[in-house]
């Protein structure tokens, strides 16, 4: 069976396709979340170094990973939108940004609340922490720029330029910060790694990561659908939709 991908590249078909996919992803996200949390709180053993505090890992690591992954995805779709003038991909990019920023914030927040009991401080200027902070700023920059532009076409393109420039910079930032840090006498504290992670911990973390992923897909699909409606509200198909039920 061949699928006509171009069909789904039109906002209208995507709108309906996404609508049909949503329930499955939602169910998946909720299931994974429950399973992940169950493993995290009731199966995974106590860490012999960090005690129960390590349980923050089940949101911290998924959030940190998602924040980085989503930025690349966002830049990719924004770039596709810029290069091929496909409206849908730009809309997806704009839909990703808030969720990515939310995860970046969560990684920062949970990291800080983990750092306080483990390192005795909310924050250190460590390479990983610093580059996560900068990633958060890049998200904020992307969103502020798009928010400041009224014309959606211009907002898409301008956002794409800054997302692409940012994605080039992320590795540069990451390595520069890492190097900057090692030049000093080693930071007074460093990431405490449990020597060998118990399988329950690892699987909990991975399942929570999958849950975060599914959650991102759900939210991004919903947001993309909203953006599609907002932007296409004068087209015939939205008017038809309006006559029926707004589902």
């Amino acid at each position, binding site marked *: 069976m061949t699928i006509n991908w171009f069909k789904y590249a039109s906002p209208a078909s995507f709108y309906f396709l996404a609508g049909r996919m949503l329930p499955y992803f939602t169910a998946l996200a909720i299931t994974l979340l429950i399973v992940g949390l169950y493993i995290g709180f009731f199966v995974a053993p106590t860490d012999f170094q960090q005690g129960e505090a390590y349980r923050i890992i089940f949101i911290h690591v998924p959030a940190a990973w998602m924040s980085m992954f989503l930025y690349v995805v966002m830049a990719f779709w924004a770039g596709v939108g810029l290069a091929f003038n496909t409206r849908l991909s730009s809309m997806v990019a704009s839909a990703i940004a808030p969720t990515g920023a939310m995860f970046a914030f969560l990684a920062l927040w949970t990291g800080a609340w983990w750092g306080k009991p483990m390192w005795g*401080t909310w924050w*250190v*200027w460590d390479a990983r922490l610093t580059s996560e902070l900068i990633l958060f700023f890049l998200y904020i920059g992307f969103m502020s720029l798009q*928010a400041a532009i009224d014309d959606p076409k211009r907002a898409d393109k301008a956002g794409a330029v800054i997302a692409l420039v940012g994605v080039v910079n992320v590795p540069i930032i990451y390595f520069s910060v890492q190097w900057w840090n090692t030049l000093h006498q080693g930071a007074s504290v460093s990431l405490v790694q449990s020597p060998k992670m118990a399988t329950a911990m690892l699987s909990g973390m991975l399942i929570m990561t999958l849950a975060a992923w599914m959650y991102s897909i759900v939210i991004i699909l919903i947001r993309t659908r909203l953006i599609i409606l907002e932007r296409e509200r004068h087209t015939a198909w939205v008017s038809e939709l309006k006559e029926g039920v707004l589902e």
Partner: protein
Amino acid sequence: MIWWIVKRDLLLAMRRRSDVLTTLFFFIIVVSLFPLGVGPEPSILRTMASGVVWVAALLASMLSLGRMFSSDYADGTLEQMLLSPVSLAALVTGKAISHWLVTGVPLVLMAPVLGIQYDLAGDALLVLTLSLLLGTPVLSLIGAIGAALTLGLRGGGVLVSILVLPLYIPVLIFGTGAVEASSAGMEFGAHFSILGALLLVSIVFSPWATAASLRISMS
């Protein structure tokens, strides 16, 4: 009338919700830049903290001064303000108040979080925040004079900083002084009294001076 001006400026700020946020993020980013420049040593950072936060607040407040009158000037609204039968000093007070609401208040609210990045203790955080609360309105009021004087001059954005930064220095010194005194376990009430006095003086004199400067710039 003051109310109309405040309302209008807030409306303008809200029209771009990002406006308020951006000043705030500027502040956050500047404060976060310093550790990158200076290095991650916590003990050094702690000594710098109040200085960096205060200097960043100064800069954030100063940078937005440009916007205070320039767009009103460019599109002729200011001309109309000068021609308005209402007292110019009142109009100007309105502008200073809205400037503070849009730029100062968010900084005050954000300061504790940034202090944590520099590993400040709870007490010092509180004093830092209070000193900003007393000091930032002074920045807006003094800044208004500078903004009015440099109106329509090319390079005004930088010129204004030369004019106002020297005037900001007392605020900076007493603001950071309070924090340092409290970190050192000393009495910081005197610093606060002086900040309060600066605030009163600027509330009384700045609208008048700003109105005069505006008239000079526009004639």
